[in-house]
């Protein structure tokens, strides 16, 4: 029986070369014995095997190659033969890559998972100790005992992470050394772990104090940090004492007499409550004198339930004596985050078309019929929801206040919600669009659509047409404003 001897270092690459050669020569899996030993990577130890399978070039999905090469870092001595056999079956199509119902493939995937975990644990549990530096770079060394021959697969991570220092990771079989930016692997000769490092005391201090004795969960710890790693972890020596002391420490915390909160805490809570109640009361009755004060008080508004999920109230914005007031529906996602009206996509459209119609946004008072964003959460997005009549009515108090304080000569109602809030009904918006209605106090209201309505039109041509009409509306409102003194 021909024997393929693979070197301890560079095993995976050597296996790949040999496997490719054997497959090309048509050597069946059962005709080869694989083992690790000393010597050159491509030794056919005894007589050449007889070809009995069709010669083939192996072509595999990239993922398959990666999984096989990872699984080859398992300690199972049969891994080379099994992987070669699977390789041939994958190549001749008798097993499909990804078919977990095949026992051989399933075993490969399981071993690959074990190896990945072992590599991950090595990345986690290697503990470097500092050695005297020989040059300008600091020097560290670690002793680690993996269960599987993963040294070469695990080392590149450390080169990416510890690029500016020299280090060595010594395992019972392999020493990986990184000196002046070059990584090399050699067979281990000296199995003495490096001497302890002064920083380990600080690390143990941290470990002992970050532990919460009231949440003792030993099993959860051990499933992730199995005992076999403990002997090389400087902190693990503390574990038994921490566990033993935990119940007592937790009980002592429970038993200790609680501290009376200082009197100022209660006083502060009372003051806050009084302030909140005060503003709620004022929001219901008395009227704040000026816009900044109104805005501050609106922050505490609880007239409807929308405050609970929104970030903040979005109050109107603009000159306190603006001649034109524009009213939209409610703040959207952007407005809710920024705390300012019309700063999102609809606001951008409004700005563009207002400018085109000869209006300067900085001269307008821009606000909404409802001051909190109403939405329903969908994963990481928020879906706009139309405010209901109750919410519009509740919020009209603030809109009325803004009208009283600003006293605009002309109001532009954008969309049905704004129209409903101002005039009592939003019905027939498209019919009423472009017309002027009068409020009870005589203020003219120019009716148009909401910019979001335009943005929601699916058809690009319809959007262009609607934008044009919106611009014409704004121009008409502008012209109307000129006729009002």
């Amino acid at each position, binding site marked *: 029986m021909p024997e393929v001897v693979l070197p301890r270092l560079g095993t995976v690459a050597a296996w790949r070369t040999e496997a490719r050669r054997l497959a090309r020569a048509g050597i069946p899996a059962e005709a080869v014995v694989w083992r690790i030993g000393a010597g050159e990577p491509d030794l056919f130890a005894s007589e050449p095997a007889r070809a009995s399978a069709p010669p083939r070039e192996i072509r595999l999905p990239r993922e398959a190659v990666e999984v096989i090469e990872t699984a080859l870092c398992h300690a199972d001595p049969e891994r080379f033969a099994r992987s070669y056999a699977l390789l041939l079956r994958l190549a001749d199509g008798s097993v499909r890559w*990804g*078919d*977990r*119902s095949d026992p051989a493939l399933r075993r490969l995937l399981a071993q690959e998972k074990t190896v990945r975990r072992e590599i991950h644990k090595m990345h*986690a*549990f*290697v*503990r*470097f*100790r500092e050695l005297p530096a020989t040059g300008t770079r600091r020097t*560290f060394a670690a002793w680690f005992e993996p269960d599987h021959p993963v040294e070469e697969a695990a080392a590149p*991570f*450390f*080169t*990416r*992470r*510890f*690029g*500016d220092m020299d280090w060595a990771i010594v395992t019972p079989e392999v020493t990986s050394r990184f000196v002046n*930016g070059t990584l090399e692997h050699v067979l281990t000769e000296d199995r003495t772990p490096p001497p302890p490092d002064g920083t380990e*005391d*600080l690390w143990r*201090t*941290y*470990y*002992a*104090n970050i*532990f*919460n*004795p*009231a*949440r*003792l969960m*030993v099993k959860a*710890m051990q499933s992730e*940090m199995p005992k076999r790693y403990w002997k090389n972890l400087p902190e693990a020596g503390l574990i038994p004492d*921490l*566990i033993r002391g*935990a119940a007592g420490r*937790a009980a002592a*915390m*429970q038993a*200790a007499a*609680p*501290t009376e909160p*200082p009197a100022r*805490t209660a006083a502060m*809570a009372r003051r806050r*409550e009084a302030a909140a109640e005060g503003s709620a009361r004022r929001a219901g009755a008395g009227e704040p004198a000026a816009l900044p004060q109104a805005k501050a008080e609106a*922050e505490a508004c609880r007239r409807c339930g929308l405050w*609970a*999920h929104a*970030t*903040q109230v979005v109050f109107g914005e603009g000159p306190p004596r603006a001649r034109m007031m524009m009213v939209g529906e409610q703040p959207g996602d952007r407005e*809710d*985050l*920024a705390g300012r009206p019309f700063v999102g996509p609809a606001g951008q459209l409004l700005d563009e078309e207002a400018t085109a119609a000869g209006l300067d946004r900085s001269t307008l008072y821009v606000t909404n019929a409802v001051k909190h964003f109403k939405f329903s*959460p969908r*994963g*990481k997005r928020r879906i706009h929801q139309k405010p209901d009549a109750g919410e519009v009515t509740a919020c009209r108090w603030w809109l009325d206040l803004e009208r009283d304080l600003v006293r605009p000569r002309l109001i532009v109602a954008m969309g049905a919600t704004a129209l409903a809030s101002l005039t009592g009904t939003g019905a027939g918006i498209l019919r009423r669009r472009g017309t002027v209605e009068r409020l009870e106090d005589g203020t003219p209201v120019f009716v148009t659509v909401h910019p979001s309505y335009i943005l929601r039109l699916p058809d690009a041509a319809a959007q262009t047409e609607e934008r044009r009409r919106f611009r014409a509306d704004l121009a008409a409102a502008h012209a109307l404003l000129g006729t009002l003194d």
Partner: protein
Amino acid sequence: MKRDLARKLAILSDAAKYDASCASSGGERRDSKDGKGLGSAGGTGICHAYAPDGRCISLLKILMTNFCIFDCAYCVNRASSRVERARFSVEEVVTLTIEFYRRNYIEGLFLSSGIIRSPDETMGDMVRIARTLRERENFRGYIHLKTIPDAAPELIEQAGLYADRLSINVELPTEAGLSRLAPEKSALGIRKAMADVRLKREAAREPSFRGRRPSRFAPAGQSTQMIVGADGADDAAILGNASTLYANYGLSRVYYSAFSPIPDASKALPLVRPPLLREHRLYQADWLLRFYGFAVDEIAQGGMLDLEVDPKLAWALAHRAAFPVDVNRASREMLLRVPGFGTKTVGRILAARAHGAVRYEHLPAMGAVLKHARPFIVAPGWRPQGLDDASLRARFVAPPEQLSLF
């Protein structure tokens, strides 16, 4: 001096342990292959150790100082607590981070702080630590900064440039709870701070008008933490708040932290055993919301999650008419609702269906947990039984078990 540092480390790590987050994954990929710096980040995070409380230790999680002018009843560091106080200097935090990192103890730094006289001064020192790590030490590992509400916007701006993740804790699930137990904190202030981070992150993602990519802001996102069991909020309120937070601020994670006894408790908030199982169920429910297409009102119907069975199983037991599910014909959405099927399992089932029927005996190799899935599925080789039995639930409820202390 050395002993002094150890004492400070003891105090300021003890003070930091009630923050649950230790994530160090995601964000920007960096390494130090060029030999000019230290550290790497951006892959899957690594847990370098586990404490006997089962929590992973991935970051050096410390407070810059545990002096605090706030008096939050649940917090060990509140102004009225009698714990010993300490304060790290900028240099001390930098040294600890670098020396721990070089020995492969940690993935990076998670720095939080008590609020001292001025929020700007506190945040300024935290930013200085992050900047020193990045600019002087060329540190390319992970940095998570807790932002201080009411700190100046420039400081938050800088914090986001040096840190991978920013977080601010909402602390309590309801605003009423917050104003009772943390009277100095403002729910509005916290929400505005999270909104601000989201806007800054999105602005940093868009190429500027000059076509240059602006510097990245908090590439690993923002997260928050809610304390469970300190106020009266039920699970539906907690999960409702969480799903709002995910939607509003694009959070990477919401952490749930069972209210845990602290060394010097406040009379305003008597100590209880930490509701660890409840916390666990909330995390399971959080996963169902984010990756399995469940809505809050589906899983927390009675207000509280079922402690005896996990939320997915509880949903299936309560909606037996939707089962059994045919493994070979059901939609992805429905497969995701099968107890014992995870997202990976469902992906594998769907991929395998393209090549032929999936048999019952193939399922374990695809990662399915048949102990849970069995009554709820149909597949060649398997007909479920007892789906309508009143005793079905009892099969899943573990018999009461004496807890042992190892």
